[in-house]
């Protein structure tokens, strides 16, 4: 099973790429759970799920035991049951979990966060491929929100601002719980020099190169997934990326079956 999370600067293309990746991975067979931890969620659109206001209901958690986490899943509800009940189902049978949204008040958001971290920690790693979309910037990734992933894909555009955030994200490899692979995906690439600029600046393999494709912006305006509106160079590049990520798992079978605690 593949467990990958996408991070990067706001606007770098995380949601467009991760949502498309989840659907294309699912088309190859195998169950896919898409997880969106951005309080400004964008993944639903690229998955082709119309409504993205799916906050986790408050009553999924109850107060935790003394000295433990503040909120825990209510008795009788485990990670598998949570996914079963609260993950919506989108095109290509991708299941989608959104941890909460900006619009809820603080306590709701906090409960959602606790439910979320327990679900990704306790879910059966053999049951799901997991594709995650992190919020822009470095905060969540650095605080361990990508712990569920074996692969952290840092999405970057060939601009100094985007590369600056990417460089800071790559420091994650120093963390004890860091995903075993931290890789770079170049987005909105116009020419070969763009990729060169990125790999020089980051000194890390660029495993995917996604072209600038006007159809993606059009899809965004129509609130459609890039897969459902004039699929072209962008979708082809994501298809390739899925293949590359799969092959890195094949090379290291052990990691593929081990999953993460």
């Amino acid at each position, binding site marked *: 099973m593949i467990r990958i999370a996408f991070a990067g600067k706001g606007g770098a293309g995380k949601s467009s790429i991760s949502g498309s990746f989840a659907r294309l991975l699912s088309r190859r067979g195998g169950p896919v759970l898409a997880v969106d931890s951005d309080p*400004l969620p*964008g993944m639903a*659109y690229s998955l082709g799920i119309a409504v993205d206001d799916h906050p986790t209901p408050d009553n999924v958690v109850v107060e935790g035991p003394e000295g433990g986490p503040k909120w825990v899943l209510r008795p009788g509800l485990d990670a598998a049951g949570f996914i079963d009940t609260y993950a919506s189902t989108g095109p290509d049978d991708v299941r989608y979990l959104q941890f909460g949204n900006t619009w809820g008040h603080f306590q709701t958001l906090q409960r959602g966060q606790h439910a979320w971290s327990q679900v990704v920690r306790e879910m059966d790693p053999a049951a799901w491929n997991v594709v995650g979309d992190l919020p*822009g910037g470095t905060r969540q990734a650095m605080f361990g929100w990508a712990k569920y992933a074996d692969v952290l894909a840092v999405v970057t555009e060939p601009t100094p601002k985007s590369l600056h955030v990417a460089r800071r994200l790559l420091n994650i490899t120093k963390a004890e719980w860091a995903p075993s692979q931290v890789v770079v995906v170049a987005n909105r690439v116009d020419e070969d020099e763009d990729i060169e600029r990125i790999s020089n600046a980051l000194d890390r393999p660029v495993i995917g190169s996604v072209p600038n494709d006007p159809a993606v912006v059009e899809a*965004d*305006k129509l609130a459609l997934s890039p897969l459902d509106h004039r699929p072209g160079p962008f979708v082809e590049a994501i298809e390739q990326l899925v293949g590359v990520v799969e092959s890195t798992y094949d090379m290291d079978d052990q990691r593929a079956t081990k999953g993460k605690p």
Partner: protein
Amino acid sequence: MSAEQLLSSVPESDTVIVADLEAGIGTLTRLPEASVDSTLVIVEPTPRSIDVGQRAVLVATERKQGHITIVANKVATHEDEERIRTAFGEHPVVTVPLDPVVVAADRQGASPVDVDPNALAISAIGGLVPVLIETTDT
């Protein structure tokens, strides 16, 4: 120091402060009431961006964050502009066209003003100045 602490602690003066807030409405919901004279809500012509923009307008209005102006950014067609105007009804809208100069500047890590001071997007942003002066009582 957070943006909200900073903005609520600067003394009244003749200095103009321009703050670029975090994406979304988080900072706006935490900013003490009436911290600013004017709020610019930047939206792109996509349903997702318009949705966030509308929520920002609600919060800014509720929390009395001065006059609200909508900046319609990356506008490529007449439809793009109309869509934003319709979504924001009574609020003034300043339109900034999708401009390759801004994209090029981003790639160079330079300010678009320095790359081409006469660029379409730059002149359009200049159009904000009279709107701000008109709506701010200084």
